[in-house]
């Protein structure tokens, strides 16, 4: 009887550990146009051969949460299984006229895009609670001190969700990774170019460190 209880107990513990480690829900969060989908695509392409979603120079291209159920990543002899969750960019304002003025979009189309984008932001926030770990993707050419970035990181900290900060677009001359690092001194920050795959090995190293905390 005692042996049976002990056996069941250890089985449950191992099952729980194995289940958690084998399917880590990894979220991609950040402001619009930082390169969340580009990075998620890079991972998916590298390990499944398929992309997760479309990318565009126009902000709010991702307006729904997108998933890739099973992505097996191997790095330096270790294997991890992730569920990738690519979320719409979080913003505090959305103006359809930005799409018509800056990107010459038709008014109806711009209004529809803005409407979908507002819903996307709400959906992205709702998903915060479901993440095991999060990659916060920031555009390294932009000011990292924006309140949206601080709010995202603050919420993850409050929920005890491990965070990796990625400074994307380091291939651009204006990129300033030092500024990103100084804005978030308590976090692991890695600079990459998701578009060109620059520094991706360092990113995988940091990703596996992050997965350990999940």
């Amino acid at each position, binding site marked *: 009887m005692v042996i049976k209880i002990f056996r069941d107990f250890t089985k449950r513990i191992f099952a729980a550990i194995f289940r958690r480690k084998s399917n880590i829900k990894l979220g991609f969060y950040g402001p619009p146009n930082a390169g969340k989908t580009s990075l998620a695509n890079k991972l998916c392409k590298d390990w499944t051969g398929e992309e997760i979603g479309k990318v565009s120079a126009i902000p709010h291209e991702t307006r729904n949460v997108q998933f890739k159920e099973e992505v097996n990543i191997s790095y330096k002899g270790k294997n991890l299984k992730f569920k990738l969750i690519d979320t719409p960019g*979080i*913003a*505090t*304002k*959305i*103006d359809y006229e930005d799409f018509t003025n800056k990107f010459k979009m038709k008014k109806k189309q711009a209004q529809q895009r*803005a*409407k979908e984008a*507002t*819903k996307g*932001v*709400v959906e992205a*926030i709702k998903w*915060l609670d479901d993440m095991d770990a999060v990659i916060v993707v920031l555009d390294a050419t932009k*000011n990292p*001190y*924006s*309140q*949206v970035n*601080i*709010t995202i990181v*603050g*919420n993850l*900290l*409050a929920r005890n969700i491990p965070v990796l900060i990625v400074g994307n677009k380091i291939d651009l001359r204006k990129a300033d990774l030092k500024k990103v690092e*100084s*804005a978030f001194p308590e976090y692991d920050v890695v600079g990459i170019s998701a578009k060109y795959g620059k520094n991706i090995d360092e990113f995988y190293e940091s990703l596996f460190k992050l997965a350990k905390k999940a």
Partner: protein
Amino acid sequence: MKKRMKKSVMKGLTIQFVPFSEISRLDSVERIKKLLKVILSNKVIVLQGRLKPEEETRLIEDTMIMIDNIKGFKGVELAVISADKSEAAFIQKIKLGIANALVGHQDDLTIIGPATIVKEMKRDPKKLEIMMR
């Protein structure tokens, strides 16, 4: 039917100071409601203290819903200025931590403005620039 926001032709900027005592007894939903009501009347809020992280996301969520439902409303610009505690001694930091847990971050200032009036808030570690439309 969509509500319509008052046309925001700027005739003068109104800044409303909200002391922490005015929101300290409200729950999160009421706090956000109160702040958004001021924003909808085209005023810029200077709030003593700061919202909790989950209140900040709630503010963003409610803002998005309002963009969808109130014609002319385009969202908010938001920034928090925190007192620099990096130089404080260890004991001082502990004291501040306890004080913050008890009465909130009253040393901080939160500035929230409607996006139709405030074009951008540029925050650097030591300064905040507010650009108006």
